[in-house]
């Protein structure tokens, strides 16, 4: 069973349906026990970094994520759900960056590009031994964001470029994350979801 963590980040209907195409049962939940016990936990996220962290902490989400990772249970962060896995984010931060869940030590910062948000389909320099991108190395995925992590963290890194180079995905044992939206990336996105869910 795959749980999609509901912490007030709006529409999860299409994410629910997209993950269901993998053949797994999917539940949208804000219940800590359900989120901890699931075979895989998806952490979505829209909106600003700090607002997302507030929503996450209101359901004890940081704790659930850390506990899953230390118990070798898979977690997949998507978009802002990827960004909040880092230690810090400086979106709308005056001086001191906001704290994230802290799985990876890096600060999520604004992309240096003439046109923002980075919105649309972009290709990815995929990590050689990536599980997520297996068989879909040359596809494009749908991004919509203005901030990104730019530091090499985790076991496998996949990158994309818009103005500058930043992380499109990280795979690090039981915790993975994509800056793009696989649930909005058509058949390529569904293939990535299948790759992840097959690894559970």
């Amino acid at each position, binding site marked *: 069973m795959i749980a999609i963590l509901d912490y007030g980040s709006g529409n999860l209907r299409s994410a629910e349906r997209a993950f269901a195409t993998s053949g797994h049962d999917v539940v949208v939940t804000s219940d800590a026990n359900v989120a901890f016990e699931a075979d895989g936990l998806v952490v979505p996220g829209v909106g600003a970094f700090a607002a997302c962290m507030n929503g996450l902490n209101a359901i004890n989400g940081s704790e659930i994520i850390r506990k899953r990772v230390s118990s070798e249970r898979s977690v997949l962060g998507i978009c802002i759900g990827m960004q909040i896995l880092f230690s810090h984010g400086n979106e709308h931060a005056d001086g001191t960056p906001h704290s994230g869940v802290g799985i990876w030590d890096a600060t999520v910062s604004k992309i240096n590009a003439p*046109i923002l*948000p980075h919105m649309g389909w*972009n290709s990815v320099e995929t990590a050689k031994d990536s599980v997520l991108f297996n068989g879909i190395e040359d*596809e494009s995925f749908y991004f919509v964001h203005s901030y990104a992590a730019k530091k090499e963290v985790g076991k496998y890194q996949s990158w994309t470029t818009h103005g500058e180079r930043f992380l499109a995905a990280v795979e690090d044992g039981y915790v993975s994350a994509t800056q793009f*939206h696989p649930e909005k990336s*058509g*058949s390529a996105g569904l293939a990535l979801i299948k790759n992840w869910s097959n690894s559970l």
Partner: protein
Amino acid sequence: MTLSIRIIPCLDVTQGRVVKGVNFTNLVDAGDPVEMASLYDLEGADELTFLDISASSAGRETTLDVVRRTAEEVFIPLTVGGGIRSVEDVDRLLRAGADKVSINTSAIARPQLIAEIADRFGSQVLVLSVDARRARTSSGFEVTTHGGREGTDIDALAWVEQACALGVGEILLNSMDADGTRAGYDISMISAVRAVSNVPLIASGGAGALEDFAAALDAGADALLAASVFHFGIHRISDVKAYLAKHNYPVRTTPAK
């Protein structure tokens, strides 16, 4: 690693059906929105836009249902516009499955609505739809409302600058002069708006020949929206992408199904 240009079919929806007319009159029924959305996804549409042109609250409920059914079947981004007046309206559409909303008339009536939506859901959900035409404002382009039927005397470029400062994430620029004519996008209007904005720009109105799509990109558009040329089969989305790829524009090619 290049961001692809986006081709976006727009479906004008009322009573749960797709319609599109020339210059917003003489509406002609062109099909079921969910079926058309699936078809366009298969043909390589990079996003979909629904414009709700129904006038009643009953019509809007029907649209919410269309959005729900589409979001459950089609896994590409969906923007919905038309009749959005409040943060609550945005919330309902996002919960139904829309990824972005576009606003126009209500933002002109109360610009602070832009900041309210951006603060609550983030700029990335908010598309400013600008229906502009040539007129005697300072830049020569005037904003219109109510689907192009009413002028505002508001200068289109000044409005774009104000809206960007308030927090829109994208601009959908629709030329009221070119809309439905298939005589080409309004190139000078696209260039003028590009020059005063740094969010993605979707050009709309006037797409006819394949060269028209390339010309709008050259003028600074990041994405191209069209309706009638796709609905009536004058071009398939795959034809437009093949043409643009041949001329070295970055397009997303979709895997064979």
